């Protein structure tokens, strides 16, 4: 995973935020994924424009944890979302950044 990739949510995925947490439905499996506040924030940042570096930067600003830990956890979490087909991993267009 590198800075040339972004992570748009899949259009057909129902989800809802409740307070600082979120619930995401995998309609193919009929399963519900509850996300804690950090997971919900990463989900919110998977907007199809931000790279993993930008997502890690935001999380590091908002949550008290070492950036290396955040990076490892964020990459693993994003990969799990992609494996469950809740988000896509796409190549960003050249020059695109927030």
């Amino acid at each position: 995973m590198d800075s040339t990739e972004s992570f748009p949510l899949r259009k057909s995925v129902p989800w809802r935020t409740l307070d600082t947490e979120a619930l995401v439905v995998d309609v193919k499996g009929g399963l519900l994924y509850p996300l804690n506040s950090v997971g919900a924030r990463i989900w919110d940042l998977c907007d199809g424009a931000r790279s993993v570096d930008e997502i890690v930067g935001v999380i590091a600003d908002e949550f008290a944890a070492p950036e290396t830990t955040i990076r490892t956890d964020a990459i693993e979490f994003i990969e799990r979302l992609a494996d469950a087909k809740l988000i896509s991993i796409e190549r960003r267009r050249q020059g695109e950044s927030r």
Partner: protein
Amino acid sequence: MAERTPRIDVAGLVFRVGGLAAAGRAWVEERYGPFLSRRAPTFGVQVRVSERYRPGRMPRPSAAWHDGRFALASHPSRADGDLARRRVAFRAGPGPALNPDLFRLLCSFLLMQKGGVLIHASAVVDGSGAWVFSGPSGSGKTTIAGLAGDRVVLNDETIALRPAPRGWRACATPFYGSGGPSMARVNDSAPVRGLCFLRKSSRFAHRRLTPTEVVSRAFPEVMLPKRDARVAERLLATLASLGAAVPAWELAFTPDPAIWSYLDGLD
């Protein structure tokens, strides 16, 4: 003399069930007896036997909904309906005239349209309201219903939860579980006092659940397939509203009638 057409009232949804032969009508009146009604129907169900038994792998139940029309399937029956015309064509396979699995799916789908849910739960009316006990098979729903004593049991397996002007109501349904027909003897409802997600234990214990936990615990217990995005989205909204309005706990319990006084002390 014209033959009667049965009407079945489930949580305020009144179904007029037409197209039944005499034997099928007798079966429906026997199976759904306590839920027969004279109220004006809200939905017309026309039953037609049109499918033969087909051996092989049984497809999973499904629910799809688009532009006011819906299709529900629970092998070997299926229902195709029109929300605006309030009509459902119920194609029965071999077996009961009104397949309870599909009829339950139909009730669940229509209840969702009214902002409610049909949930895998038992419920017992105690004092000012109903305690609703949810959880997967084996979690103790029927066990708790069996401890009701002279309290009213709304059901041991399937409960309708509907928003009302003052909070939510738990409504009886005819879809009983391992407790058998005695668990669906009355068509009654009561305000929800609390919602408990069960865990069998050797002692009583409880933990208050957050609204997010309520949604994530209740979602798998809603009796609808969730593989249609619109259905899943609607359920999330309904359960979020339920979780915000109704106190809920994780409840570890032992099968002891002292459960009712324990519940009175929940905070």
